[in-house]
């Protein structure tokens, strides 16, 4: 069965600092991988996605993620965070040829950016 692990429940960083959020997945084939962001009391917004090609994918708001098949990872990064990046970030996996396109989510990482 597929699974997504986000080992860090909370991350606190200072404004202007870099940010890395970790995501490890378990799936026998190459999955579709996603990062979503959830701002307080809002729905999920797609940051970026990966299926094939260049392992480094660029997303919205200067976020990028790097896929590693050997490490089964899909870590999210941002070079310089702003206070508005405070939110919960979810890594998610979708199986190829999945009836119903079931997304498996990690537990999320809550990011607090200090001014």
């Amino acid at each position, binding site marked *: 069965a597929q699974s997504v692990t986000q080992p860090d429940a909370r991350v606190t960083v200072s404004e202007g600092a870099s940010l890395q959020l970790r995501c490890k997945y378990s799936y026998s084939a190459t999955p579709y991988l996603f990062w*979503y962001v959830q701002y307080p009391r809002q*729905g*999920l917004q797609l940051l970026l996605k990966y299926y094939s090609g260049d392992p480094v994918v660029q997303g919205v708001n200067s976020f990028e993620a790097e896929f590693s098949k050997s490490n089964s990872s899909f870590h999210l990064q941002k070079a310089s965070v702003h206070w508005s990046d405070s939110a919960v970030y979810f890594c998610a996996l*979708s199986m190829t040829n999945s009836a*119903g*396109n079931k997304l498996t989510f990690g537990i*999320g990482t809550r990011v607090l950016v200090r001014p």
Partner: protein
Amino acid sequence: AQTIHQWPVAEIKAVGSPLSLGCTIKGKSSPNLYWYWQATGGTLQQLFYSITVGQVESVVQLNLSASRPKDDQFILSTEKLLLSHSGFYLCAWAGDSGNTLYFGEGSRLIVV
């Protein structure tokens, strides 16, 4: 551009009362639609999905039901709410040949 709208934004309901949450998508014909549930502070769990009008598949049994009465509408309901139904309900549609989900703003439910 596609837009997805959920209603109501929030509800406070009594245990044992009925519930109906709605989701409408515009700008996309014959979309695949999904319901997800998020416990407070928790991760997301898929509840139902629908590929076409009149057809709904259940993924997790939570004493809820779903219906697809129109191509652009997806309804989540129950006749008797439980305390465990509290949480955040998100509707989503599939884009990019079905590989990417785009979510609505959600409906927050508090059962008392």
